[in-house]
């Protein structure tokens, strides 16, 4: 087989596009872990809530798509904040296993609530974006759009964390929580803001996913584990590590799927994950 096959190139580019989306998906989860030291097991279910919001506002209530998406981002940000205030805060200083259990419980709660409220049907927006042709290759415009917005989200978050007082405080609090009050910073407030930000990132991810995939109550399970593995692969809590890991993982899926069979791409990616965990249990860029 010619190694510079256009179809291979197409697979690599598709891998890049998928990588951007996975990078955005892992961002919120990583941020929360890095700052608050808690894993939101129900992170993918927050995304599911965002997808339903876009779907209902757009399809049922005929909101303009962009407005429905903004509303979804705001709503999931609010959900993230509420999750922190009412579920995480009471167990903030408890054993990690308790924190896993409460957020794990939220996963099943949100899934069951969505089944009751929306039924088990697969629903889609019915928006079909055209495909973009470059020479002999063709790419889905939805994926290109998702990739672009995902990168914009990553860059935006990076600038926020680097350039603003609040962003600096968010990075500082992950390094020394106890002395933050001496800086005039209320840790509880920073945690609330970070949770809302993590939620907003989940909301943005929801907008991009709902353009490409049908939404149903169990959709979280189809990408939640991958997102979690990517965070672990990059070094849980390390935003840059998660970013790199997302692209590595996506290339395994896309190129592996090209050479063998689509499912084999996932098999290869998970084998790679397991090998890395033996070699560097703290993740590729973990400390």
């Amino acid at each position, binding site marked *: 087989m010619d190694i510079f096959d256009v179809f291979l190139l197409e697979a690599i580019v598709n891998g890049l596009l998928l990588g951007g989306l996975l990078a955005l998906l892992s961002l919120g989860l990583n941020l929360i872990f890095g700052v608050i030291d808690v894993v939101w097991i129900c992170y993918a279910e927050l995304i599911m809530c965002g997808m339903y919001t876009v779907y209902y506002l757009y399809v049922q209530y005929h909101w303009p798509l962009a407005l429905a998406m903004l509303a979804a981002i705001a709503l999931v940000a609010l959900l993230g904040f509420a999750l922190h205030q009412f579920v995480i805060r009471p167990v903030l200083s408890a054993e990690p296993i308790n924190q896993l259990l409460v957020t794990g419980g939220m996963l099943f709660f949100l899934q069951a609530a969505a089944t009751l409220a929306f039924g088990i049907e697969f629903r889609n927006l019915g928006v079909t974006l055209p495909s973009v042709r470059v020479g002999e290759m063709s790419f889905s415009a939805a994926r290109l759009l998702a990739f672009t917005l995902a990168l914009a989200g990553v860059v935006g978050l990076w600038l926020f964390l680097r350039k603003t007082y609040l962003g600096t*405080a968010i990075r*500082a609090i992950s390094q020394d929580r106890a002395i*933050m*009050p*001496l*800086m005039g*910073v209320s*840790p509880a407030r920073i945690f609330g803001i970070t949770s809302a930000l993590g939620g907003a990132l989940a909301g943005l991810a929801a907008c991009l996913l709902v353009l490409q995939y049908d939404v149903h109550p169990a959709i979280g399970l189809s990408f939640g584990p991958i997102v979690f593995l990517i965070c672990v692969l990059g070094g849980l809590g390390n935003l840059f590590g998660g970013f790199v890991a997302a692209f590595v993982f996506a290339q395994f899926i896309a190129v592996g799927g090209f050479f063998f069979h689509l499912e084999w791409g996932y098999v290869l990616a998970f084998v790679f994950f397991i090998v890395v965990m033996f070699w560097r249990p703290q993740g590729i860029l973990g400390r």
Partner: protein
Amino acid sequence: MLSLERVSAGYGDFQALFGVSLEVNAGEAVAVIGPNGAGKTTLLRAISKLVEPSAGDIRLEGRSLVPLPAHEVVAHGIAHVPENRRLFPRLTVEENLRMGAFSSRNRFHERLEMVYGLFPRLEERRRQPAGTLSGGEQQMCAIGRALMSGPKLLLLDEPSAGLAPVVVQSIFALVRRICAQGYTVLIVEQNIRQVLKVVSRAYLLEAGRIRLTGTAQALLASSEIRKAYLGL
């Protein structure tokens, strides 16, 4: 400026301070000296509200700090340089200073200039992660971070701890400079001989109680201090 009236404080069932009263006047440098475990750090932590006092009153310019949450104390004019400096190791020097100005960010640039004027070394290293600084530079950065809030009162917790003997000298020279700038300073130290050369008055804290108080010269001359702490 600062007055403590019969302040008690502790952690859970452990009581570290028993009715401590002390006074710091504006423009004055005062030390609290005493052995390890006497409650010196707890005293400073009670003033900045990192520890909730269980009894007594703490007043800054007549205003009680007791009802304030910890993160509002700094906006009232108290900056605390904690024990072991506690810089944010992966933030740069300048980002650490920025955190010091969190509650007064509109004054950030003028204060940054002031701190860099005081410690030119920090300006040279402004883009370096604070964790890569030497011990003495870290102490400068920690003091600079506290000055970024424009405090009326500066609390210094063991500024000489963990530093090489040569550096200890320069840190005390630095503290003397800060005092000369007109800052009101309350400093906690185990290095009694050195600190008494810098401050005008001191309190001796033992087992959570004030045992002795007086001018620095008087304490240096007192037989109790000379025997127990200076080994003379």
